[in-house]
Structure formats: C-alpha cells, structure tokens
C-alpha cells in the first residue's frame, strides 16, 4: 500500500474510503488513526464528541482490515450502543450503559463499520441548536461562535470537520436535515418505518427516524443500504423490500417533475438562503427537471401540530426516568415520590421539562380533544396535502431552514423563536415522508441546504436527484478551514 498523508485520509468520503479499502490502497487502521488524530486536533474547538472510543475504534479497525468494510463512523448519543455510554446528552443518563445495540447500530457493525464515538446532541433529541446538551454545546466548524444546528449537531459538525467520514443521526422534526444544512453536509431522513427504531431512545414515537449524515448522496446511499429494512423488534418498521440505493444513482433526472411549494418561500426568509436555494432549483432545471409551482396550504399548521403531538408522546416516553431502575437518582430526605420528583427536577434540562409539561397538558382530561386529538386530525390533512401534490410532481425542492447557522445563545431565551427554524422540516415528519438536505451554497459565509422531499419510500429517487446535483456542483466538497 502506498503511504497516504493523514490529512488526505480524513477527507475521504465513505464511498471513496470503502473503494480504497476494498482495493487495499489503504487500511482501516490507517484511516481510523487519521480520524482519531483529526478528532484530537479539532474537537476541543467544536465539542462534537461526548465520548471518544479510541481503543475500541483501533480494535475494530484491526478486525475490519481482515474484511472489506472498515469505514469509521460516529453514532448520535441517542442510539443505544452495547457496553458504551449512551447519555442522550442528559444528566439523567450521563452514566447509563445499555446492554444491547440499537438495530441500526448492530447492522452497521455487522457490515464492519468502525465506531469512533458517540455524538453530542440536544438533550433527548429536543432542540434545534445542540445548545440543549447537558454537557456542552457543539460548535459549527464553519464558525465556532455559531450553532451547528440540532438536535444532531454533534453528528453534522463531526462530518463537516472531518472528525468522522459519516454519522448516524436521528430526525423527529428536522434534526438530521437542519444541522446538515447548517454544517454544509448531506443528510437523509428516511420514510417513517424504513429504518428500525429499536434501540433509538424514544422522543416522539410516531415521528422519530434514524438516518445518515455524510459528505454526499452516494455515501448516504451506502449507509442507508446497511441500515434499512424490516426489523421484527419494531412493530412500526415497514416490511417493504429495500432497493439497491447505489444502483439508483444514475445521474439522470431528465423529465423529473419537481414541485416548488410556495408556502416554503415565505417572507422573512434570509435573503442569502432564498438566493442559494433558488439557484439550486435553477441548476436542477438545467439538469433536466421540469419545475412546477405547487401549494401545500396546511404548511402553516405544522408547527403547532408538531408542538402538541411530539411533546405529548415525549411526556409518556420520558416517564420511565425516575431514578428507581437506572440513571440519575437524587436520593436525600423524604419519601419515594419526593425522590422521584427531585430526580426529574435535577436530571432533566429546561427544554425537556417544558415539553413534558406541554405534552401532559395536551393529553389531560378535558383538553385531549381540543389539543392532541385535534392535532392528529390536522396531521391527517397535512399528509393528504402531500399525497395530493405528489400526484402532480415526483419530488419537492425547498429550503431546509429560513435561516443559516445563528450565533450561540441568540435564540435560547425565546423557545418559540427557536422552534421557528424548523418550520420547513416539521411538515415532512408529520407526513412520515423521506427528505434530504443537500449543500447548495452559502449565505454570508455560512452553508445553506436544499431540501428535497419525496413521496412514501422514494429514498432512491431523492438520492439520485441529490447525486445528480452533486455531480454538477461543488458545494458538498467545500470544507471549513478548521
């Protein structure tokens, strides 16, 4: 094998690395060492990692060199890793060590992926900036005074900074797409049920999904191939066969009917975002897509709908954290109930508490019909809106967020102002549809993401659109100077 400089190695995309490993041009040990060195070089500035599993990574890399795959990865700390701390970026689980692997993690391990460590995030997946981590905020590699987005901020930042070739994130209201957009990397949220949720610590059960964050669409295809498919341990996982995602990357989108929803280009959007996204749509037209204006009238209700349904489900999902069985336990004086209350008072951060209270209220007797039930009915309308539009077009193009990465601390005093950065990603989760974030330019030096949304189980189509775009553009190759 020819010697490669470490700096060349950590810049490889997952697909490139996989090819070089397969051709025995590089070894997994070399690649992993390079990534670990890169982490050591940048992580004190961006704090993308909660835990770095250096010894494990080297051991797995050694194993992997005996097989073909050996690409190192980061796993968001919301996914269970057997024997390795899974904190969900919460004091409540700061020392919690699961006794099993999440299915998505197990499948990647079976394919020989190497675990570099667990990624920082907003606590329990609740947040849009990774500022809600109980430990430390992650910093955007493009400007360390700014947020990387959230809740998968640690994952997007790691990939962006070369501190991982790829990462597994999760998306409940935009948590893969939005940080991917803020950090200039590619992310994919699959159709609800496409990837098993077994081992994904639940936030909002009917919305959560696991997905890849990587340097380009080809990487996302490779990773999705490894994790997608039915899991008998997840009753909501889809039985549908998994197509060959890499084979779907034909690079040809001629004749593709691409819808542009007018409601996603509202007033108040960052001008640079609007410009970059519009240019990207023009580029797709130049590549052969037929652009059509469409309308999704229920878009304006998605935010309210999400902030009733997600907190409601989370209020039940987080009820188990009481200090009795595992995790943080605040003992002290008083009886069992008082200990439980203190555990939750000190174990949860403010945003988590906020959502638990919202959810318990929305489900409570006398209010259930007006809030939770009504929100679920509106959700059906949102789903129908998309279904209707997908009768006329094959995919939608829109911004991921109305803004680019904002300064750390800018929106932490105003929860609603924070929630608003996800207005264009939320509706997709409500409808259970697949969507991607694709780097498409910059605004004031900060990355902008193009959102591609497709009908149920159209991941192959979306990946091909993104891949075709990435063959003709260079945005996804831009690296922060860190």
């Amino acid at each position, binding site marked *: 094998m020819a010697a490669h400089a470490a700096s060349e190695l950590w810049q490889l995309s997952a697909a490139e690395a996989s090819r070089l490993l397969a051709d025995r041009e590089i070894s997994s040990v070399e690649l992993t060492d390079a990534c670990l060195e890169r982490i050591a070089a940048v992580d004190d500035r961006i704090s993308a990692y909660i835990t770095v599993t250096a010894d494990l990574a080297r051991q797995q890399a050694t194993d992997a060199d005996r097989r073909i795959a050996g690409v190192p990865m980061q796993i968001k700390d919301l996914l269970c890793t057997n024997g390795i701390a899974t904190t969900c970026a919460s004091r409540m689980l700061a020392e919690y060590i699961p006794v099993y692997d999440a299915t998505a993690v197990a499948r990647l391990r079976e394919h020989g992926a190497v675990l570099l460590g667990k990624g920082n995030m907003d606590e329990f997946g609740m947040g849009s900036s990774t500022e809600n981590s109980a430990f430390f905020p992650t910093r955007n590699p493009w400007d360390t005074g700014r947020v990387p987005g959230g809740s998968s901020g640690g994952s997007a930042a790691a990939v962006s900074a070369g501190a991982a070739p790829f990462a597994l994130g999760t998306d409940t209201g935009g948590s893969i797409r939005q940080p991917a957009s803020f950090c200039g990397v590619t992310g994919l949220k699959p159709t609800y049920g496409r990837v098993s949720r077994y081992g994904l610590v639940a936030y909002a059960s009917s919305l959560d999904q696991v997905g890849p964050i990587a340097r380009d669409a080809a990487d996302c295809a490779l990773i999705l191939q490894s994790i997608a498919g039915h899991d008998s341990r997840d009753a*909501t996982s889809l039985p549908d066969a998994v197509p060959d995602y890499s084979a779907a990357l034909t690079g040809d989108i001629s004749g593709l009917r691409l819808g542009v929803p007018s409601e996603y280009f509202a007033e108040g959007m960052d001008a640079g975002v609007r410009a970059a996204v519009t240019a990207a749509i023009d580029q797709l037209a130049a590549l052969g897509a037929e652009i059509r204006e469409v309308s999704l009238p229920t878009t304006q209700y998605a935010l309210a709908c999400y902030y009733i349904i997600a907190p409601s489900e989370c209020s039940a999902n987080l009820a188990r954290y009481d200090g009795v069985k595992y995790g943080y336990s605040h003992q002290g004086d008083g009886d069992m109930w008082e200990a439980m209350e203190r555990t939750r008072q000190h174990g949860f951060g403010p945003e988590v508490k906020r959502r638990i209270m919202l959810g*318990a209220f929305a489900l409570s007797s006398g209010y259930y019909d007006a809030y939770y039930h009504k929100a679920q009915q509106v959700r059906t309308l949102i789903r129908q809106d998309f279904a209707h539009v997908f009768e006329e077009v094959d995919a939608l193009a829109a911004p991921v967020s109305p803004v680019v990465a904002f300064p750390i601390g800018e929106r932490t005093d105003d929860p609603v102002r924070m929630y608003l950065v996800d207005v264009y990603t939320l509706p997709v989760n409500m409808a259970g549809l697949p969507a991607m974030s694709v780097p498409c330019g910059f605004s004031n030096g900060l990355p902008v993401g193009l959102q591609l949304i497709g009908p149920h189980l159209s991941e192959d189509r979306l990946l091909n659109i993104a891949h075709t775009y990435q063959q003709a553009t260079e945005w996804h190759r831009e690296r922060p100077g860190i």
Partner: protein
Amino acid sequence: MQYETVIGLEVHVQLHTRSKMFCGCPADYQAAEPNTRTCPVCLGLPGALPVINRRAVEYTVLTGLALNCRIPEFTKFDRKNYPYPDLMKGYQISQYDLPLALDGFLEIDGDTQLGLGRRRIGVERVHLEEDVGSYDDRGEGYSLVDVNRSGVPLMEVVSKPDMRSAEEARQYLTLLHSIVQYLGVSTGNMQDGNFRCDANVSIRPVGSQILGTRTEVKNMNSFRAVYQALEYEVVRQREVIEDGGAVVQETRGWIEEREVTVSQRSKEYAHDYRYFPEPDLPPLRIGPERVAELAAELPEFAPQRSARFQADLALSGYDADLLAGSRSMANYFETTLTAIAANPKAVADYISGKDTAARFLMGQVMRLTKGQAQPELALRLVQEGLELQKTRGSLEP
C-alpha cells in the same frame, strides 16, 4: 326503606401464553427467581419497543366469543399513564376506547332469594393489556420490585352493573372462571394471582333508576372472599345511609382476617391516565373470516356439557355439574364411558360382584388418556360410570 344492591365485576385474567404480551420472555414467572424473566422490553429500558403477542390476542377474542360479545373489525392499544415503581415504562399498554370485544353477556340462574330467575348479566367489554411488576413494600424504609411479572398478558373482563347480590356475583364469577379454564386461556388460579376480581358496589332505594355512589372493593383472593366482602360492603353502605351519612366514593380493601373492608385512600395522585393511542403498535384489523375461524374453535362449555350429561345419562343436576366442572374432568368422564362401552365383559364382571373389573377399566382409562388422568380420579369415575351402567342398563342415549 328497602334497598337494592348493584354490583359490577372487573376480572383480570392472566393468559396462559408461552411468552409475555410484548416481548419473548417466558410468561411462566411463578417459580422463577426474582428478576430472571426480563429483557430490555419488559424492563422498559430506553430504546426498547413492544411487539404484539398474537396468541394473547386470539385468546382474548376466543373469550369474547365465549361471552357472546361482538368482535369489532378494528381494534388498537393505548397508553395508560401513571407513575409507580412496578410500572417500568411509567405507562401501561392497555386498551381504551376500541377494545377487542364488546357487548356480551353470561346467563346465570339468578338469586332466588330475591325472586330473580335465570337471566343475563351483561359483559361491557373484554380487553387486553400487560401486567405490571410485583411491588413488595418491606416497610423498614425500602421496597422490592420484581420485574418477572411485568409484561405478562392480562385480559380484563368488565361486566355491566347487572348483579343484584353477592350470590349473583358468585355465580357470574364461577361461570366466567369455568369458561376461561375450559378455553384453556388461563389456569384461573385465584391464589396464584391468575384470576383477580375487583368489585364495584352501590345500593339504591328499590325502584330507583339512579345509581348510588359506588365503592371499589379490592384484595379478594378467593371466591368465598368475594362473596363475604360483597355481603359485608352492602351492609356497611346501608348502615352509613341509615345513620344519616353518605357513601364516600373510594377504594376499599377486603381484610380477610378481620372480615371487613377498609378504606384504602393513600397519597392522592390524579387518576387522569391521559390515555392516547399507542404509537409503537399498529392498530389491528380482525376480519370476519378470522373471527369465524376462532368461533369454530370454541368448545362445549360446562353448562352445555352438564345439560347433555343430564339429558343423555339421566344424571342429577348436581352430579352432572360436578363431572362437567372442568374440561379435563369432563373429558376423563367421557373417556371412561368410552372405555366402559368398549368392554362389556368387564361391566358384566362388575355387576356380578368382581371388584377387579373396576381396576381393569381404570387401566383402560389411563391408556386412553395417555397417562394424563390421575389414577384415583380415573378409578372413581369408573366406579361412577359402572354404577350408572347398572342403574340404567346401558350408557347409550
């Protein structure tokens, strides 16, 4: 003033499935060491998800059919939210508004002392849920939690408030117990906790259509305890009212040793369960074809079997009920009749005074039941069968 008693019963029946309701752990936890029948799912560990036990659903539908219920085509699970150390997830997966079975009934003989004859006791619903762990408050500042029972399938049968006395409640309970046992969906052992009964009791002036304030009575661990507790509670409520007071809506526990019910109002937490549909489980569609298949699996139950023994064999009601009492007993009895009918020489020997004939036939019964029957029981049944043969002359109808 004459008062009428109004009783409704909620019976929780542990289903005799191989594995738990939402995971693959073995459901037989009785003899196991604490916390050895567990997995991430029934422990409620972060990230774990439930998967429905098909057999438990089928057992519940069978029970609903046996109780003359309607089986709706569409059913789902819901989360029932409340905090307790033995409830691992902080919510119990149960069924709220779309249960597996609705609007059934059981026919009882009625309380003759009240002048009530044979009539129907309504079954409101039959639904499926998971059991919780066991919680043992040791008192000296600590309690123990055993998760083995957490997740065991639990079927709940809710009657309408149609029973008018402790005697009617006893009849209903006995019949329900016989049915679940005949179906083989539960061993129905009250002492082991497989068959638990809670009662809702109230009284009202005779002729009134308005229900009186009810109390919930729990902790009755035998049929006798149910009978005694209900008798006691009715008297207690009447005395409260006649003393000029009002019955308080509360939960009361039956104290076996003192033969009284005692108020169990402990630390108040809101009984708002905040039910919402379980997002981790898809709703179920049980089509009419499947319901018909299950209906075809229903056995002849005790009352019908007893009636047949009385009609065909001229047995007294008492004897027939006894022999039809359990499915295994009734089966052994019918096997005995088969053995007798197949061995006329043994019968003749018996009639002419040869005792060994009975033993010979007992051996035949053991062979026919593949050694399942208890020898003493088989012998007793043979002797009864032979006596029947003697008096009737033949066992043919």
